[in-house]
C-alpha cells in the first residue's frame, strides 16, 4: 500500500472502562487487547510482554481503584499502555516499585492477587514506564513496548 509515511504508521486505539473490585469481568479487556495484537501479527515476544503489562495494569485498577480506564495504542512500531484511575493514588512510588511490596488488602491476597508484583512486572516487561499519581485522586501509568525491528516478512519495506 503506497502512501505517505503517516498512512504507513496507523494507530489502533482500544479503550475499556474497568470497575474496582469487579473480579468477574476482570481480565477481559487484557484478553481482547492480546487477541488484537495477535490478529495484527506483532512478534510473539511483544504479545507476551504486552499481555503481562496490560493484565497487571488492569488488575491494579481492579484491586486498588474505584474505577478507571485501560487504553491500548497499537502501531506497527510500538504498543502503548495507558491506565488511568480514580483511586487512592500511590503515596510512595519508589516503595510501590519494589518487588513484593503490596498494599492490597488481605482478602485480595487470599485470591492470589496483590503479591506486590504489579508495577515491577509492568516495568520489567516494558521498555519505558511513567507513573503520575496524586494521593486521594488517582494514578496514571503509561508503559511503552517497542516492537523489535527484526528482519522477515513482518517488517518489510521501510
Amino acid at each position, binding site marked *: *500500500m503506497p502512501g505517505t509515511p503517516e498512512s*504507513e504508521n*496507523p494507530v*489502533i486505539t482500544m479503550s475499556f472502562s474497568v470497575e474496582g473490585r469487579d473480579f468477574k469481568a476482570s*481480565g477481559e479487556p*487484557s*484478553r481482547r487487547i*492480546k*487477541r*488484537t495484537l*495477535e*490478529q*495484527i*501479527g*506483532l512478534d*510473539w*515476544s511483544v*504479545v*507476551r510482554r504486552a*499481555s*503481562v503489562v496490560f*493484565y*497487571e495494569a488492569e488488575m491494579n485498577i481492579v484491586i486498588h481503584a474505584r474505577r478507571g480506564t485501560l487504553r491500548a495504542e*497499537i*502501531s*506497527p512500531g510500538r504498543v502503548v499502555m495507558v491506565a488511568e484511575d480514580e483511586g487512592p493514588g500511590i503515596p510512595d512510588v519508589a516503595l510501590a516499585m519494589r518487588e513484593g511490596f503490596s498494599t492490597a488488602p488481605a482478602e485480595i491476597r487470599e485470591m*492470589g492477587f496483590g503479591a506486590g508484583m504489579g508495577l515491577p*512486572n509492568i516495568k520489567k*516487561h516494558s521498555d519505558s514506564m511513567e507513573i503520575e499519581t496524586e494521593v486521594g485522586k488517582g494514578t496514571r501509568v503509561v508503559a511503552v513496548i517497542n516492537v523489535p525491528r527484526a528482519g522477515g*516478512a*513482518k*517488517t*518489510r519495506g521501510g
Partner: protein
Amino acid sequence: MGRYFHSVTLDRDKCKGCTNCIKRCPTEAIRVREGKAVIFEERCVDCGECIRACPNHAKSALTDKLDRLSEFDYTVALPAPSFYGQFRRTSTPEAVLRALLAVGFDDVHEVASAASAVAYAVRTYIRRGEYKKPLISSACPAVVRLIQVRFPSLLDHIVPIESPMEIAARFAKEAASRKTGLPAGRIGAFFISPCAAKVTAAKQPVGRSTSAVDGVLSMSEIYGLAVKHLRDPYEGPDLQVAAASGIRWGRAGGENAEVGTGELLAVDGIHHVIVVLGEIEKGRLADVDFLEAQACVGGCIGGPLVPENPFVARANIKAMADMVGDRPVPLEPGELDRYYDSGVFFMENRIPPRPVMQLDDDVAVAMLKVELLEKTVNDLPNLDCGSCGSPTCRALAEDIVRGLALETDCVFKLRERVRDLAAEMKELAEKVPPSMEQPNPRQSANAATEAEGA
C-alpha cells in the same frame, strides 16, 4: 493430505450441518459450508471435542486397522495406561495384557512403564536444568498443538522430553530386536490409543521428523476384541511389569503424582487448559514448576476413543493400580540415568509455532483489517447463533475481513436487507410515470370546485 495430517475427519453423509461442533471447537477451526462441516486444517489440534459434540456421529478419528499387523514380522502392542481403566476389577492388569496377545500381537510393552521412565526424566530435568517456569507437560499432543496454534509464546515452556507413547515404542523395539534378532524395521509398534491426537502425533510428530510408533489403533476397537479373551488359558512368562504409578497416568493427576517434584499444577479438559495457559501467558503461575495439562476431561480415560465412561474408568484405574501395588518402576535408576544422558528422552527439534490468528502477513494491512473487524462486529447482532456457519459473530466478522464470508451470511443481516429492499420495492411500485397517473377522483373534484369558484 495437505500440509497437516489430521486424525479427526468428517463423514459428509452423516453431517447435518448443525452448529454443535463449531460451537465447541477450542480453536474455532470449523465452519459449516454448503450444509456440511468444514475443518480449517491449520487450526485443528485434533483434540476430539467435535467427535464428542456431534449428535450424528459424523466426526470420527482416523485410526489404523488391525490388518496392518501383517506388514511386520513381529508386532508389539503398546497399551496406553488408560486401557486398564476399561476393565472392571473382576479382571487383572496381567489378564488384560494377555488378552492383547490373543488379539494377534506377538508381544506387549506397557506404555505405563515408559511413563514411569518419562516421569524420571522430567524429575531429573527439573532438578538439573535451567528452565522457564512453569514447565508444561508434553504428554498430551492436543495440548502441545493447542500451544502451537493459540499460545506460541509458551512453546519454550514445554518440557523437551518425548511422550510416554514415543519412549515406549523405542524401548519396545529395542527389547523386541534383542529378543528376536530382527532389525527394528521389521518390528511393528502399535499404540492402543484413547484419542485422535495420538494418531496425529504418530503420523506427524512435532518434536522429531518421524515417530517410532508404526500404527495407532482405536482403544474401543481393541477393547471389543480383547474383552472376549480375558479368561483364555495362557502359558508363558508374566507380561505385566509396570508400576502402579505408571498405570495412574491414565487419569488426570497421575502424571503429577509420579513426577512428584516441586510445585505442581494439573488441569484437564481443553477449555480449562486454555484458561490456565492464558494465566501463564499473563505472567501468573510463575511459582509453578510443572504443569500437567490434558485435553480430555478426566485425563486420557476421557478420550474420545475410549469405550468406558471416565468416571467408571477412574475407579477401574485405581483398582488396577492397587492390584499391582507399589512395586519399583521396571528400570533401575542407574539405567535411567544412562538413558537420560544418552539423550533418548529428548525431542530432536524445537516445536515450531503455527500462528493462525494474524489477519494479514503485512502488519499495516492487518491493522486496517482489525479496524474493519471491530466495525463489522458492532454491526452484527452478537447473538452468536451460528446460523451463518461461523461459531460466533466475532468469528464471522473475522471470516468477512479475511474474505471467507459475507455480511449477508448473517440471517439477521440478510433479513434486514430483505426488509429494506421490500420497503424500497413497495415505494417504487407505487411510483407511476405522470403520463400513466390515474386522476384522483376527490382531488379532481376539488380541483373542479376550485375552478368553479374561481
